């Protein structure tokens, strides 16, 4: 690993004012394939402060979930982490042993998985499934665990009578709440939510997200929120990053990204969703297909699909640079900036 350049890059990342809870510094993750390594996450750095919601957005296959899984070190072969640091409360997750990871997972960082609704065991009552976590990690006895489980269910808005229910007796939204309750069982400092509401209808989606927001205010954890639904994310998170082909192309506060997107990919993403208010506009989307991660395009990985500089194939990869306070864009020479910007 080239330590010099990574140190430089990480120092040029946006600073979070309070000591960050999660600090990812130039993370690289690769998948081994017969054609060569696929660079799923390529020099990604970001930080999440205490009590903040950080959104990670991008199209399928851009590396969002890979980042989430590497924070817990639960990526399965053929994935290999090939560089960087993942600091949680100052401790580097990438230096932990199997044993210390067991203690770290769920207690410090827990996760709501992508197919959360299917991660419940159909033949065990949900009460028992929540108890499991508490008995295993907090060494509670059966009775204490049951009391705490009831409490947790109440937090996510389900009556405690439902403890004896089986997953198939509940609706999708309720199952999702149960999974969130299990994720919150140990009071984690960081909750990773990997497309938690993708399978739910918009009404339930909104309900659950509102509830998580309330729980977050009460319990004070931070959230890493992953989705491809940018409009949902803008509403829900403080800061957000847009990923493309394993790299962050734009990072700023959610409001800033929504009102002032600079990177052509971000603009494309935003124009792929209709807005409820404001003028009617044509949805444009982004032409082309995601790039090959084994032999990515040279220079700016987005250039083959870029509407603004389609012919530009620079040798040098664009660097994240701060174009406005707190607003970072993967920027390369010749990239046109909207009027009125530095």
């Amino acid at each position, binding site marked *: 690993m080239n330590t010099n350049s990574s140190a430089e890059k990480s120092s040029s990342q946006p600073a979070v004012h309070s000591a960050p809870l999660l600090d990812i510094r130039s993370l690289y993750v690769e998948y*081994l394939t017969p054609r*060569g390594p696929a660079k799923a996450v390529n020099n990604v750095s970001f930080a999440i402060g205490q009590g903040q919601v950080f959104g990670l957005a991008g199209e399928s296959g851009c590396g969002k979930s890979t980042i989430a899984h590497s924070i817990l070190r639960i990526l399965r072969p053929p994935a290999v982490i090939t*560089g960087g640091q993942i600091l949680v409360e100052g401790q580097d997750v990438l230096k932990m042993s199997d044993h210390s990871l067991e203690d770290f997972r769920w207690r410090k960082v827990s996760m709501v998985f992508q197919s959360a609704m299917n991660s419940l065991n159909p033949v065990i009552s949900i009460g028992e499934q929540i108890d499991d976590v508490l008995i295993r990690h907090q060494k509670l006895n059966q009775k204490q665990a049951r009391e705490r489980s009831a409490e947790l269910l109440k937090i996510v808005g389900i009556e405690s009578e439902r403890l004896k229910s089986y997953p198939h007796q509940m609706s999708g939204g309720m199952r999702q709440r149960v999974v969130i309750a299990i994720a919150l069982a140990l009071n984690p400092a960081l909750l990773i939510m990997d497309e938690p509401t993708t399978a739910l209808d918009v009404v339930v989606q909104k309900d659950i997200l509102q509830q998580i927001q309330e729980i977050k205010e009460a319990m004070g954890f931070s959230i890493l929120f992953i989705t491809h639904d940018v409009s949902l994310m803008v509403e829900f998170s403080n800061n957000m990053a847009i990923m493309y082909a394993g790299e962050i192309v734009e990072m700023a506060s959610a409001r800033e990204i929504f009102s002032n997107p600079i990177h052509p990919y971000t603009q494309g993403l935003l124009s792929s969703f209709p807005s409820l208010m404001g003028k009617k506009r044509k949805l444009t989307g982004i032409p082309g297909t995601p790039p090959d991660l084994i032999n990515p395009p040279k220079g700016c990985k987005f250039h083959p699909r870029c509407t603004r500089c389609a012919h530009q194939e620079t040798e040098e990869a664009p660097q994240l640079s701060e174009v406005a306070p707190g607003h970072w864009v993967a920027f390369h020479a010749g990239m046109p900036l909207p009027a009125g910007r530095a």
Partner: protein
Amino acid sequence: MNENDKKEQPEKSAESKPRFSLKAPLAGALGTLLGSSKARVGFVIVMIFVLAGVFASSIAPGDPKKYVGKPNQPPSAQFILGTNPQGKDVFRQFVWGSRLSLLIGFGSAALMTIIATVVGMMAGFYRGIVDDVLNFIMNLFLVIPGLPLLVLLSAYLKPGTTTIIFALAITGWAFNGRIIRAQTMSLREKDFVAAAVVSGEPALKIIFIHILPNMVNILVGGFIGAVIYGIMSSTGLAFLGLASTADVTWGTNLFWAQNGGALMIGAWWAFMPSGMAVAIVAFGLALINYGMDEITNPRLTAERNVNSVLKKARIPRMRATPVVPHEH
């Protein structure tokens, strides 16, 4: 001191230039199969015997049934594996024996797999009365003790290779049939089958075009198991004298050795080669079966690839996602 230095040195050089490829090895079914060392060993073992059988006439020229010299001679320069109690060349018998033994093994396995696949898939797909009848037949063949039926069949039918293959297939197919039926029943509930039904595809096409390719692993695993069963049982039958003694198989070799009292006189060279061959081929086939697991379960291949990278980078294995510092 000296030992310490030696230990430290390789670590240092690994630190200073982490130059190893992050490329996974060969892909494709054959590449995966031969990428696993177990399967490679098994493949070599089985191929040695197959080639011995195919080129028997050039490896051990001459008639294996011919009287060549004094009976019960121990291995010597003239007779590499000695002579048997009937004065036949053991090496010739052993090499020529692999031809028929393997033919019977693979032939009966192919027949067994075909019967098992057709009956098992029909039963699993159609359910109802078809399933009841076919399942009853399978259960019937399962509870009939195999060896006595084999003995009966081979005693009443005209002795010969085809008879043995037929007898083995009849007694041995039901076990795989049950497995295939169960797998078909679970696959027929999948959405892609429902989609095929809705789009109006004929039942036979659904069974053999849509469902069958999803259980190739089971079929191949079953086939390899059936080859082992075929070789073992045909050898057993021949040893009991129930095969045509005019044929040369590993089983008849054992029969003749036993018949002439090779065991009693301690003429180990007369029965060891054929007996070992059966065991070694069965072992080789079992090793190939391990390799089959990897073809149908890419996770195993992925795990092996990551482990080989860890080994090259001198990083101990762990359950969590490994960290392998590498230049970018």
